């Protein structure tokens, strides 16, 4: 039961919450694999949020609040499993993560001046939503399995040892995958920041 005074308010609240559903569903589907499990987790999150609406103090954005609620549901689901099967693009590759970024560096491993993007994010608070959209877009471009492992660390906050325990990736490969994801995100984000200027 929604804790609002009338059905019109309840509808408006539900519409507000449901607008965040696609983002939440992408996160949940990536981590849980199953569409049905992801739908359940997101539905529980939205229902829980509607019930606890008065606890939302607006200090964080609505999406952040919902993302935090969903996190606990995903962690519980993952910890209830022995491990999550790896997807085909899991392999970190045969190299040690260096080759992909060779073009960014000189032979001496200094940033290559011809390709180095020096844009820093000077946007004001008003552009925060745009900046977050850029990060979200860049994350969507990561390979699926890299993204899943990256978000186990960056979203779920799992320690590296626990991620290894719940996946089939080795410690060395996990470090490489996280490194690659962060480097790719930086490259993608700085290009996006340049577009904002």
């Amino acid at each position, binding site marked *: 039961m929604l804790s609002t005074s009338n059905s019109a308010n309840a509808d408006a609240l539900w519409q507000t919450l449901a607008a965040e559903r696609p983002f939440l569903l992408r996160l949940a589907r990536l981590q849980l694999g199953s569409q049905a499990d992801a739908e359940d987790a997101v539905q529980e999150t939205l229902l829980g949020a509607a019930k606890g609406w008065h606890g939302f103090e607006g200090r964080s954005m609505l999406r952040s609040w919902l993302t935090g609620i969903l996190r606990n549901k995903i962690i519980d689901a993952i910890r209830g499993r022995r491990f999550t099967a790896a997807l085909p693009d899991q392999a970190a590759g045969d190299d040690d993560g260096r080759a992909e970024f060779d073009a960014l560096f000189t032979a001496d491993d200094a*940033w290559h001046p011809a390709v180095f993007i020096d844009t820093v994010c000077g946007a004001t608070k008003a552009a925060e939503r745009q900046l977050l959209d850029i990060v979200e877009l860049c994350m969507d471009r990561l390979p699926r399995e890299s993204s899943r492992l990256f978000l186990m660390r960056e979203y779920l906050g799992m320690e590296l040892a626990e991620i290894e325990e719940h996946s089939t990736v080795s410690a060395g490969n996990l470090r490489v995958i996280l490194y690659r994801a962060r480097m790719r995100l930086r490259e993608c984000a700085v290009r996006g920041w340049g577009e904002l200027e």
Partner: protein
Amino acid sequence: MTSDTAPGNAITCRETTYIVSESRDGPLTDAQRERMTTHLETCAACRIASTQFAQLFDQLDTLLARKPD
């Protein structure tokens, strides 16, 4: 991929990116921190890249609700 260069050795720009990535997963060693600081003092590109990574991580923390209210 490693940032475990010998103590006291200068590091390259590429090695600073390894350290930046590792810093998201756990505390750096004193030696890593010292090498990073020394390198940043003389490398303008790495100072910029370091700022870019910090901004990106800050936005990730917001997007993924990792920041305390």
